């Protein structure tokens, strides 16, 4: 803070001389500033320091400041999820330029290959937690990052890149250990088809029929949009899955739904003026994120975590047995037996230490703004751009205005996107392990990467 104040004072032009002699403001105490920075160095290491954070956040819009702050402080390890949180919050407040940049930055990292990354290899280490790795998210989270980028492309009328983004989302659904769970994300197939159809309106031969057919294979009730329809309406309702640890050594990653059932049963869109004769269009649910999260069929790293858990329980078992046997032998009258008992106790202690040092915990950091249900509807775009969105519960309309509403596209292909739940969620990355976070931040290689990230953020 003192550093910032000093910099600001230095940047100010000299004021005109006052008529009366005023007492001069106290000069910045160089020693105090140096002391402050030394204190920050001890407390924050390579940074970011409070004055840097304050200066960075000063130019950011108020509603997005918490997300920028998390990104600024979270470093590369949490950059993907923090960019995703920022991007979705920016979509909600209508800052689409920031949303595009944020999802581009998240996807850049998701698409990066960690071929010789030290934190990734540390995550495999028996004595380190999986949470050491940079977050990329599970396939359903990665797919949703592509999905939101695709929606932003649809809004901008860039149908080729929208289709590419939705294909990227659909591809994430194929990253499954088990064949039976591959390619069942109907929403993404539907959107590939829709974007392809929009793209072909400027020439070309992509009619999207194959993609609509793929969506229908996963969701047989799906209605293929009639050829005359040029307006896509997307509704997101409910709260998406959260991650938790399970198993004796917390080695299992499990997904839980935060609600037994979402109160929003249905979404209805009314286009144009709300007159007596105007009708509502009901959105058709196409995909459930909980279903997507829970039907992946296992991760490659699950085997490693099982191995860590097995090591932890085996060494604990050996350690306990050796300690008990050793203590028993140490009560013997025979000196050789007592000596052997001491050695056995030592070995048992060593195994117990190895067991307690092993870290099998699954990484449960997650993207907490995601919805539970994705639904779609289509229509012929009316000239009147007004739209009304209602969420319907078991007993009728819910007192729940849309938290986010985005309209865009062009005359050929329009899009309306609505959410029932706000993406402006509080707090830092849910599920993060503060001890791992602090330990990674102290690594010099991680600190250097974090510094580069902050430099790049300053240019966004």
């Amino acid at each position, binding site marked *: 803070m003192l550093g910032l104040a000093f910099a600001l004072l230095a940047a100010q032009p000299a004021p005109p001389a006052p008529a009366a002699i005023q007492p001069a403001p106290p000069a910045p105490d160089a020693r105090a500033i140096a002391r402050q920075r030394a204190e920050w160095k001890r407390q924050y290491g390579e940074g970011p320091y409070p004055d840097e954070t304050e200066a960075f956040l000063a130019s950011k819009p108020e509603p997005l400041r918490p997300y920028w702050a998390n990104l600024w402080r979270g470093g590369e390890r949490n950059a993907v999820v923090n960019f995703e949180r920022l991007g979705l919050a920016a979509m909600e407040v209508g800052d689409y330029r920031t949303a595009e940049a944020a999802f581009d930055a998240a996807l850049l990292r998701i698409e990066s290959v*960690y071929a010789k990354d030290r934190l*990734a*290899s540390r995550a495999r280490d028996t004595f380190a937690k999986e949470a050491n*790795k940079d977050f990329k998210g599970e396939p359903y989270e990665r797919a949703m990052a592509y999905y939101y980028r695709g929606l932003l492309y649809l809004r901008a009328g860039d149908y080729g890149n929208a289709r*590419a983004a939705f294909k990227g989302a659909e591809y994430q659904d194929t990253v499954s*250990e088990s064949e039976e769970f591959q390619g069942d994300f109907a929403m993404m197939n539907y959107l590939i088809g829709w974007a392809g159809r929009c793209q072909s309106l400027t020439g*070309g031969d992509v009619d999207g029929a194959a993609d609509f057919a793929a969506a229908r294979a996963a969701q047989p009730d799906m209605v293929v949009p009639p050829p005359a329809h040029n307006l896509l309406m997307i509704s997101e309702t409910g709260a998406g899955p959260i991650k938790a640890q399970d198993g004796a050594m917390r080695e299992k990653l499990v997904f839980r739904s935060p609600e037994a059932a979402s109160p929003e049963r249905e979404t209805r869109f009314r286009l144009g003026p709300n007159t007596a004769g105007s009708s509502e269009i009901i959105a058709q649910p196409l995909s459930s994120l909980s279903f997507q999260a829970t039907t992946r069929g296992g991760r490659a790293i699950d085997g490693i975590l099982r191995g860590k858990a097995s090591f932890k329980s085996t060494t604990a078992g050996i350690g306990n047995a050796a300690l008990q046997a050793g203590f028993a032998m140490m009560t013997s009258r025979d000196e050789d037996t007592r000596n052997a008992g001491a050695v056995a106790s030592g*070995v048992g202690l*060593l195994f117990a230490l190895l067991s307690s040092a092993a870290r099998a915990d699954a990484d449960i950091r997650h993207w907490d703004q995601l919805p539970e249900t994705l639904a779609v509807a289509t229509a012929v775009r009316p000239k009147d751009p007004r739209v009304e969105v209602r969420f319907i519960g078991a007993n009728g309309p819910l007192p729940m205005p849309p938290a986010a509403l985005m309209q865009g596209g062009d005359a050929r292909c329009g899009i309306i996107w609505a959410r029932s739940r706000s993406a402006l969620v509080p707090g830092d990355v849910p599920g993060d392990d503060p001890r791992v976070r602090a330990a990674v931040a102290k690594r010099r*290689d991680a600190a250097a990467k974090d510094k580069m990230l902050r430099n790049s953020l300053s240019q966004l």
Partner: protein
Amino acid sequence: MHKQLALILLAAATALAPADAAPRRGQAAVDVDPQNRGPVSGTGIEMRDIIGMSDRIVRDLLQRADIVGTAVPPRIILEGSRIRNQSSQRIDTDLFSDQLRAQLIRAAAGKLRFLSRETISDVAAERELKREGQTDVGTRGMTRAVAGSDYRLIGRITSQDARNNSTGMTQRSTQVVFELVDMETTETVYISEPFVVVRAQRDDIVYR
């Protein structure tokens, strides 16, 4: 027994030893030859592919006497919006059109003329100002109409992704093809050699 214990301690110490030191120094910005592979690359189309592909098309077209060698240079429209990205890679198609247009204009040295349809509304507004007398006619005179085109260069980018789930290897095959279409007859008078890029990579197991 004591020897075994020492061995176990040694093994434990080895396992617990920190990993070798990571590269700690940063990397200052470096110039990378755009025609060569840079320090960061993925499975998609890169700038070196676009430059190489444009170079090939320029060489092809300049050898076509029926297109480039005519007494009156043909007029061509080449715009990013007509390069259709049907691949799974997000890409700015203006990268292709700008590179091609720049290379063609420079290499053809007047033997090909390019029309800008992207600026036609600006041109129409300027023409109106001139004809209304709000501006003078400029130094190049006026024409009865804007120039019509002889050809349009169009392109298509397609891709196929594949993945081996047992090894985690992913592969993307991308194909780019350009065609020169006669704007009077719809005839394709030139088609580029399909430019195919196949690249594979594998992410760390913690992300698979």
